[in-house]
């Protein structure tokens, strides 16, 4: 398949998306709801590009390449849409723990405060109802990644989905019950894919609350999960000689970034140092 992006023509395999083609050409395309282990839902609209002869912009993350497509990724029209989408997100949700979104806001010179101080937001109390992870939906941009990770893309648990509609659309457990009463199995795979920190390990949340989360000082140690025989790769995030978070590499053949409750949260025995 031949596609011309920003004046350069290239060949990509059939079935590639415009995003795949752009990445192959080294074009940095912003994405928020896209995840390389998830089915694209193309809802955030920050990856939109201009496709010649199309009525509207198209989402690069999900639009399949057709032979002869001519695409512009940095036209005024594209930049305007990306900027306004970022302004809308930044005006409605707290992006303070969303480094990618903040970087895009800088890149597109977006001004989320342009809508005024009385703009409706999704601000609400943090949900702390278990010891493993917290849900701060003031930071939720409704990217659907957690829903996909909990559903058919990863865990097949279906503990959460999108409830409500319009600006009131939000992530909810069944009947909005607290997490411990829901179908959640605490794999934390939703936490792993959340791009804004709306879902966060309780350990990280508590350290941030205390002002003791120092990411720049943390080291990452790759190891293998000590529990079952699957042999998932773990990345231990270590601060002050203690494990403060566990993740798994997205590109690992076995896990694709996923873990279970034991691998992601069952590490405290490692540092159960006992009374001095």
């Amino acid at each position, binding site marked *: 398949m031949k596609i011309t992006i920003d004046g350069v023509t290239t060949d990509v395999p059939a079935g590639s998306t415009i995003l795949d083609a752009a990445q192959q050409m080294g074009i940095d395309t912003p994405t928020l709801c896209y995840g390389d282990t998830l089915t694209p839902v*193309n809802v955030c609209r920050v990856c939109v590009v201009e496709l010649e002869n199309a009525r509207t912009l198209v989402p690069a993350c999900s639009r399949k390449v057709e032979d002869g497509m001519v695409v512009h990724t940095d036209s005024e029209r594209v930049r305007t849409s990306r900027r306004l989408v970022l302004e809308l997100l930044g005006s*409605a949700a707290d992006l303070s723990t969303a480094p990618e979104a903040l970087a895009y806001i800088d890149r597109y010179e977006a001004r989320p405060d342009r809508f005024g101080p009385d703009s409706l937001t999704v601000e609400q109390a943090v949900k702390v109802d278990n010891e493993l992870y917290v849900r701060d939906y003031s930071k939720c941009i409704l990217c659907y990644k957690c829903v996909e990770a909990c559903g058919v893309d990863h865990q097949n648990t279906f503990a959460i989905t999108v409830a409500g509609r319009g600006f009131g659309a939000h992530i909810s457990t069944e009947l909005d019950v607290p997490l411990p009463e829901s179908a959640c199995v605490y794999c934390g795979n939703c936490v792993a894919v959340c791009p804004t920190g709306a879902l966060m390990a309780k350990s990280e949340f508590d350290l941030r609350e205390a002002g003791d989360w120092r990411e720049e000082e943390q080291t990452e140690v790759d190891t293998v999960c000590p529990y079952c025989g699957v042999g998932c790769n773990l990345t231990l995030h270590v601060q002050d000689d203690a494990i403060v978070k566990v993740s798994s590499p997205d590109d690992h053949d076995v896990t694709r970034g996923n873990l279970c409750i034991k691998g992601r949260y069952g590490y405290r025995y490692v540092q159960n140092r006992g009374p001095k």
Partner: protein
Amino acid sequence: MIVYGAEADLVDAVLRIAEFFRDESCGQCVPCRIGTVRQEEALHRLASDTAIGDELDVLADLTQVMRDASICGLGQTAANAVDSAIHNLGVLA
């Protein structure tokens, strides 16, 4: 096309149209979910003389981006009547 009598309250009509689209948005994509809210907020500020400055720029951006980047026809047309009232009839302009 919508036809109004000469004595119709077009500000009220525009506000109701904006409210309708905000209410009808399914909430899936960002331009429509948040854009229809910001559109209605800006129109209310203009209608109540509480404008903060660049409402017309905000509305023009929303018109273009909801049309260009929303997933479906509802978001893509959510600013049509508002934009038409402002630019063709001078409502709130």
